[in-house]
């Protein structure tokens, strides 16, 4: 397992977050995990630090995103999780959810070739750190309206003003896609 034998934890405002699922392995040299924190231990409104920590030194690249919601069913706030890996310019993954859910997805790209990414299934991009920054990896996150089965699709490309050397890169695309669904609080 090497680097991916690490265990990971997350805190918000120094309060430990709960894991909703993870995966990791050597086949794609990727690891991923979803954490959440509920209202009961949430701090007052305002800016607070999120800290993600590996159990040991990690020589790879870490991409993280966060999204917060209100009006969430506190019993089962994150009701599903799924992931996939691929080596293509597109990625798609289904997750079982429900009408009224919001589905969160993230995609990261490990060859630093992606300079933009867009959802192909109507998602709203919530964070974007593309390959133009010189970062070794790139990552995006989105939310979209849930259905009985929600498909989250992504596609990446490169900006025209960039000139790439005439070498076809092995597309080390989409090491991971995480999806989590969340139930709404019933209307009173």
């Amino acid at each position: 397992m090497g680097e991916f034998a690490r265990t990971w934890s997350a805190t918000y405002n120094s309060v430990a977050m709960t894991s909703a699922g993870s995966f990791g392995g050597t086949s794609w040299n990727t690891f991923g995990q979803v954490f959440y924190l509920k209202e009961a231990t949430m701090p007052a409104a305002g800016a607070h630090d999120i800290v993600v920590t590996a159990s040991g030194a990690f020589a790879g690249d870490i991409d993280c995103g966060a999204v917060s919601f209100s009006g969430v069913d506190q019993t089962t706030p994150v009701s599903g999780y799924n992931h996939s890996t691929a080596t293509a310019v597109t990625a798609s993954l289904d997750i079982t959810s429900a009408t009224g859910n919001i589905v969160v997805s993230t995609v990261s790209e490990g060859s630093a070739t992606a300079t933009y990414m867009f959802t192909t299934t109507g998602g709203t991009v919530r964070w974007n750190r593309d390959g133009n920054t010189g970062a070794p990896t790139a990552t995006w996150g989105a939310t979209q309206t849930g259905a009985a089965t929600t498909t989250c699709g992504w596609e990446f490309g490169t900006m025209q003003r960039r000139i790439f050397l005439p070498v076809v890169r092995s597309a080390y695309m989409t090491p991971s896609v995480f999806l989590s669904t969340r139930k709404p609080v019933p209307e009173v």
Partner: protein
Amino acid sequence: MALAYDASSACTYPQSSQATVTWSHTISGDANRVLVVLVTAIWVSSPERGPQPITA
């Protein structure tokens, strides 16, 4: 109160070869909040990255 999106954030580059990643997220003051954090860790060797792009 209906389910609603409030805010998002992401860690900034560089976050390579670190065991700890820290960034700030602004939480709302609304009721029944939940924060979801999604972590991806990737290890890619130099040959797999291929040549770096030339910026015009």
